């Protein structure tokens, strides 16, 4: 009986040591694992806290972009008619102003536009204004010189 009791105590102690050893052996392995990417919770409408309404801005918050791909600013061209190509937002109204004329066009679904314009002899400041249905506005100007002089 005593022999069996001793055996039970020894077995219990061994089991305890075994479990403790296993725990400490596994713990550092967990620390060495590559950290998993942090998941950022996206606030839903219900979780967004109310914010103070700021006064009406005096300047429009314009997210509209406008770029002219061709011709380049400060280009010299040898023809009075050129095609102005560029991009802005999709379905945006565009006003193109040369020194003597004003043109109206719209961008396509992809935001691209191309318009043929007439130039005056010499320097031409071309002003392009893009305005979307939310009244966001973007402007850009470029200088195009129409000259047939060779150099």
């Amino acid at each position, binding site marked *: 009986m005593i022999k069996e009791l001793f055996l039970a105590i020894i077995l219990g102690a061994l089991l305890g040591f*075994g479990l403790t050893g296993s725990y400490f052996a596994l713990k550092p392995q967990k620390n060495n694992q590559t950290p998993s990417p942090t998941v950022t919770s996206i606030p839903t409408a219900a979780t967004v806290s109310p914010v103070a309404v700021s006064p009406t801005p005096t300047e429009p918050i314009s997210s509209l972009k406008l770029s002219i791909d061709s011709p380049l600013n*400060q280009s*010299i061209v040898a023809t009075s008619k050129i095609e102005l190509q560029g991009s802005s937002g999709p379905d945006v*109204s565009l*006003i193109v102003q040369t020194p003597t004329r004003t043109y109206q066009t719209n961008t396509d679904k992809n935001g691209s536009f191309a318009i043929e314009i007439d130039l005056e002899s010499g320097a*031409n400041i071309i*002003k392009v*204004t893009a*305005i979307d249905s939310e009244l966001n506005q973007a402007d850009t100007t470029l200088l195009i010189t129409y000259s047939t002089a060779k150099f």
Partner: protein
Amino acid sequence: MNPLLLLALLITPATSPSAITPRPTTDNLEEIQKIRQAVQEKVKEKIKEITQTIPTKRGVIGELINLKDNLLVLEYENQTQEISFDDNTVIIDAKRNKTKSSNIKVGQGILALGLTNQENNNLLEAKRLVFIDLSLVNNPQQIIAGQIIDVSKTLPVFTLIPNTDKDKQLQIKTDPKTKVVDRKENALDSKNLKSGDKVIILYKPDPKNPKTILAIKIITILSPAPTPTPKPTGN
């Protein structure tokens, strides 16, 4: 059961070898990043070198603010540009006649046509200098976009809140010459303009009457949808 065997079984899970996957160390990542940066810088340098060595034709305008020897400084919209010229540079006056470099005066509007300098990108080597009137290179018409908030029933006037300043209200006048069009340039009647319309106004500022905006052209970009009229049901 043999206690030794039991002991062996208990210890086994704690000492089992685990597979180690090789991972890039932070030192390796830094090294890769350094190589990437070096390559990017080299590419940028090469592009700059190529673009600088090919002189390109350029035309610049501005008011002459400085003239020293054969070097001009032109200013336009707060940006300056250096122009060099020599005896071969053709100089044209406002009447389109050839003139001498001695006629170049500070304050003149100048169009310089030439080639970019290979070493100094802000220097243009002028082949042609033309005296110009800077006020003629710009379209005098101005643009305002905004929303109509009120249309007069008696006068050809409407009130507009411009998109540039929503605290402001502008009185826009129209006359029989004012063109009213939609986005596809289809002509519209100015009587169709109504409160809530989003429009683009083209006008020419009148220095004698700066508060009055007489529209040359009105482009309607968005009209509020008409309120549906309730239809009588069959019941």
